[in-house]
């Protein structure tokens, strides 16, 4: 079937150069940019090009990936200076007359090539109590109106890829800042009519490393591969803190 893709695709096949930021502390402490030339098809994504390099040229090139269609959140990386998912970025949509620059997301320690240490990111997520807090013991489902359900729909889409948090200039300079993704996940519960933990979460995010560090640069919203209105969600959390309730 893959061969037939050529027909569906607008661009049959073409050659591109990828410049990949390589780093393997087992080999050397030095970071280097390595260029690779690969032939790709119109429906190929940056992830396909990286696989081509790994599978045909250099098996040691290391990156995370799984679902390959933008739902698992494994392969956020910086592509031509913008945070994106490699599996959702079609090569033909980039400027292919120039090399495509691929590097790890910023603000988290690089482990090897495009793999970063995600633990500080996950910790910020865990710290906002990312789970339903409710003391009632319903026998059936809790009721929720479609309007109440719609209130937090956008922030349920988060896939924890870290594209937003690692595009945030505040996070780059202060790794202690909770960051957009943690706030998005707090929003998902704060605005859920079934949840009773808003006060606790708002208190956590009122911290000096909380929402007030956001400088509304909108980088996060632009970076989100799920189209979440991240900056808006952060603003809603700020409002809720001022009001003392969602």
């Amino acid at each position, binding site marked *: 079937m893959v061969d037939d893709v050529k*027909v569906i695709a607008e661009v049959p096949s073409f050659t591109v150069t990828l410049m990949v930021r390589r780093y393997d502390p087992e080999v050397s402490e030095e970071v280097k940019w390595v260029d690779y030339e690969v032939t790709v098809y119109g429906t190929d994504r940056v992830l396909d090009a990286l696989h081509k390099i790994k599978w045909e040229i250099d098996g040691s090139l290391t990156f995370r990936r799984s679902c390959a269609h933008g739902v*698992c959140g494994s392969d956020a990386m910086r592509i031509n200076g913008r945070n994106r998912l490699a599996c959702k970025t079609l090569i033909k949509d980039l400027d292919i007359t120039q090399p495509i620059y691929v590097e790890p997301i910023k603000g988290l320690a690089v482990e090897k090539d495009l793999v970063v240490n995600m633990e500080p990111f996950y910790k910020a997520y865990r710290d906002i109590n990312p789970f339903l807090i409710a003391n009632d013991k319903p026998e059936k489902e809790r009721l929720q109106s479609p309007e109440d359900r719609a209130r937090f729909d956008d922030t349920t889409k988060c896939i924890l890829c870290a594209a937003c948090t690692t595009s945030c200039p505040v996070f780059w300079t202060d790794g202690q800042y909770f960051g957009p993704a943690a706030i998005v996940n707090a929003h998902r519960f704060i605005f859920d009519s079934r949840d009773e933990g808003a006060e606790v979460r708002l208190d956590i995010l009122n911290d000096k490393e909380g929402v007030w560090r956001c400088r509304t640069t909108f980088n996060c919203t632009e970076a989100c591969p799920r189209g979440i209105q991240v900056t808006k969600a952060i603003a809603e959390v700020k409002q809720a803190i001022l009001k003392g309730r969602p």
Partner: protein
Amino acid sequence: MSLNEHGTKTHHHQHDVVIVGAGGAGMRAAIEAGPHLKTAVISKLFPTRSHTGAAQGGMAAALANVEEDSWEWHTFDTVKGGDYLVDQDAAEILAKESVEAVIDLENMGLPFNRTPDGKIDQRRFGGHTRDHGKAPVRRSCYAADRTGHMILQTLYQTCVKLGIEFFNEFYVLDLVMADYNGEKRPSAVVAFELATGDLHVFQGKSIVFATGGFGKIYKTTSNAHTLTGDGVGIIWRKGLPLEDMEFYQFHPTGLAGLGILLSEAARGEGGILRNALGERFMERYAPTIKDLAPRDMVARAMANEVREGRGAGPNKDYVLLDLTHLPPEVIDAKLPDITEFARTYLGVEPYTEPVPVFPTAHYAMGGIPTNVKTEVLSDNDTVVRGLFAAGECACVSVHGANRLGTNSLLDINVFGKRAGRYAVEYAREADFVPVPENAISEVEKLLAIARNATGTEKVAVLRKELQDTMDKNAQVYRTEESLNEALEKIAELRVRYQNIQVQDRGKRFNTDLLEAIELGFLFDLSEVLVMTARERRESRGGHFREDYETRNDEEFMVHSMAYKLDKTPEKPGEDIRVDWKPVTVTNYPAMERKY
């Protein structure tokens, strides 16, 4: 921690319950076990990266929130959908416990779509009917078209709340069995830590496999790169049987050429399949429920349209999923993700253009045989005490020869929960089985082969050739000849596999090495699938033999049970024995399957 002569660091852990896999089934089991006993979840991925998150359409349960429904109708649909190869006692449990499973998730916080009066909303899905096939019924509970994503997130959130202990990016590569009081019992699993290359031995009283599927044996697949069937492969290498491996589901609506899944919910919401002539061809194949026929029938109908020259596109090799008659606001509210896939990956606008689709390898109905308590079986009825399996890796069997859409998200919740519960029940009474001194030797061997691999064959090339032959010879249509061709090819690839190269020589994040090891599991499972497909000389559910076009209940209303023989084959497949196991029938004698 210990260091052996190869310089491998080995760490030792002990937990009452050890769960392998952090998708839906694994985490549902952990939520059940964690509050009671010391529990570890070991996963090759960070939990929310698991492929449960890619499931879209919904989770079946006869809540009857929007129209009359009953668990008995759901049981019947499951049995009929599975072409009567379903164990009916298991299907009854699935349908009965579905309501509790959905309520559990809602109570954990899952944001289901709601009816105007605030209840969980439900929609139609293929093969789910009212009153034994009379008309489609609204049984699927859903959260837009990202129900799997919401289930995975909700289960992980609940695990965080409960403080479940995870070992993420740990690849389990072996199950250690030991003789204990005269029987073979599981003692531990051995895992490879991606970040360091260290080995970890996890001793457990109860060990639960929830490792998911193995769609990467095929080229065109909806499955993630990581779905290489390591868990099922490990069980196979231990000499334990695998059940119904010939039954592999091809989902009708994969994006043409890419295999990316477009949910059946698209048809549940009114989408129509059309051929190049614009004809709604499902009217000819399933006059009553048309586009909402079960997946095996729709996939075959699509393949048949293409074969008979009515395919669309320049190569006439796909059909079209037409959503253009649906109001854009319905598409946006109910199918936002999948319509975005069409836009992103094919540049097609589903509001105004039909979407090119073709069947994509999706789901393994077969796997590790278990009873309804999720206990793993070593033959037709002997339990391996202390070993459990649930979810796609297991075969209980609720899906029989063809799974209904929305029954897999249900399966992982119902049987994942059961796995947790029975693992706890067992571990409370059982002792730890001592870990043998050579516990890591099998994994050491695997790693040594890959680490020293300086041959000329590329892993990716062998994998692609395997996937090509499986797509060509063991897909929607199969014959004795095509299956033999696949068998020969796999044997050839196995020989070439002895001469592979692994370029990455490091210990840190060595995914090059792991891809080589994963390929070994893909070979094993492909071979079992092909052998069982060859021995099943009939057509049933997802298994269609062009040389035996009809269902043959007299000879084949039985599950296949494949066993690995301890011998070197002279001819491909000779080291696999295929045996049979009776189907459990309670209320539904086999009937002709028409929709």
